[in-house]
C-alpha cells in the first residue's frame, strides 16, 4: 500500500515537473536521490562517483522529461536513464571498479528478505562480488522494490529472465554469507 502511495506521489510530482514546476523537481530529487545513488554505486563502487553520476542522471532526466507518460510508473523510467548514464560513464572512462566505500552512501531501507541474509554492510560487500547482471537485479528488485516486470523494462530483458537472475543471485549471495559464517550475523540480528 505504501509502495502504491509512494508511486502515486512520484507520478504527481513528475506530471507537475513536466508542467514546469521547480518544486516538483526538488520533490523528485529528494525522493529519488538516495535509491538512485545506491543503484549507481553498483556500477562504479565509489560513493563520490556515484554521487556525481546521480547528478548527471538528474540532468538527463531533465532533458528526457517529455518521454515520461503519466500514469506509468516513474521509477523504471528513472532507473533506465540512470543506467544509461552509468554505462556511458563506464564506457567513456573505462574506469576500474574502485573501493567499496558504501558506508557514506545514503541509507535505503533494506527489505526483510535481504535483512535476514545479513546486516547491510555484509550484504553490500558480498553483493559487490556477484556478476553485474545479478547485482543489478538484486538491487532493483530486492533493495529498491521494483517488480520483475519493471526490472525487465529497465534492463531490456523479459520479466521471467529477471526473476531467474534474481533467484540465482540471491542463492549465490546466501552461499557466500554461509561460507563467510555470515549466517551467524543474520541469526544475531533476528
Amino acid at each position, binding site marked *: 500500500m505504501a509502495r502504491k502511495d509512494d508511486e502515486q506521489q512520484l507520478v504527481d510530482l513528475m506530471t507537475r515537473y*513536466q*508542467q*514546469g514546476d*521547480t518544486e516538483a*523537481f*526538488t520533490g523528485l*530529487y*529528494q525522493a529519488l*536521490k*538516495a535509491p538512485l545513488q545506491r543503484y549507481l554505486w553498483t556500477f562504479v563502487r565509489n560513493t563520490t562517483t556515484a554521487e556525481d553520476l546521480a*547528478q548527471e542522471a*538528474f*540532468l*538527463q532526466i*531533465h*532533458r*528526457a*522529461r*517529455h*518521454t*515520461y*507518460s*503519466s500514469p*506509468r*510508473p516513474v521509477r*523504471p*523510467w*528513472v*532507473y*533506465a*536513464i540512470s*543506467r*544509461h548514464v552509468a554505462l*556511458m560513464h563506464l564506457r*567513456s572512462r573505462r574506469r576500474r571498479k574502485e573501493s567499496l566505500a558504501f558506508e557514506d552512501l*545514503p*541509507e535505503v531501507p533494506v527489505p526483510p528478505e535481504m535483512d535476514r541474509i545479513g546486516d547491510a554492510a555484509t550484504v553490500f560487500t558480498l553483493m559487490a562480488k556477484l556478476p553485474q547482471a545479478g547485482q543489478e537485479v538484486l538491487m532493483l528488485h530486492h533493495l529498491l522494490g521494483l517488480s520483475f516486470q*519493471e526490472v*525487465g*523494462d*529497465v*534492463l*531490456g*530483458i*523479459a520479466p521471467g*529472465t529477471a526473476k531467474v537472475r534474481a533467484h540465482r543471485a540471491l542463492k549465490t549471495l546466501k552461499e557466500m554469507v554461509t561460507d563467510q559464517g555470515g549466517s551467524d550475523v543474520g541469526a544475531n540480528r533476528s
Partner: protein
Amino acid sequence: MSAPTVPEELLRAVTDDLQPVTPLAPVWRRTLWILAISALVFAAAVFGFGLRSDIQNIPTWLGWGCSAIEFLAAALLLGLALRESIPGRSVPLGSAFAALSACIIYQLAVGYITWRFSPGPLWESQTIGQGMSCMMSDTMLALPTLLITIWLIVRAFPVRAWMAGMLGGAGAAIASDAITHLQCPVSDMRHVLVWHTGAVVFLSAAGALTGFAWGRWRN
C-alpha cells in the same frame, strides 16, 4: 534523516530550462502516423509503377491479403522501435529478434506460396542488375518510412539507440516489401532470399548503425 538538498549547479541548470513540455504521444498513435505516411508513399508507388504482370495468376488473399498482413507485421516492428526509444520500456532482446525473424520467415513463406501459384521468370534468366534494382526499389520505398521512424526515435530518449534503429529499419523494410510483393514478378525463392530478404537485412543493419552512430554522437 533530513531530505537531501538539490545541488545549486543542478538546480540552476534545471530552472534555466524549465519550460512546460508536452509528453510524447502514445506509441500506437505515433505508429499510426508513420503508417499513414507510408501508406501514401506506397499508394503512389502502386499507381506510379503498376502491379506485377502476373497479378491475375495470384489469388487476392495471397496478393493483397498477404501484403496487408505484412504491412501489419511492419507496424508491429515500428511500434517496438518507438517503444524501445522510451526509457524504461525496453523491448527484451529475444522478443525483438523473434519478431524480426518471424517477419522474415513470413516474407519467405509468402514468396514460396506465390511461386507455387505463379513461378514467374526463372532465377537463371535474371541478371544481377535486375536483382539489384529490386533491392534498390525496396530500399527507396522504405526510405521515407525509415526517416520518419528515425526522427521519432531521436525525439525520444533511446537508451539502446542501435536496437531502436534496427527495429525501425526492419519495420520500414518489411512495410516496403509488402508493396514490392505486389510489384516484383520474380517469385523464385533464391531471388526473394537474396534481394528482398537482403533488403530487410540491409535496412535493419543501416537502422542499427544509424542508431549506434547517433547514440555515440549524443553521448
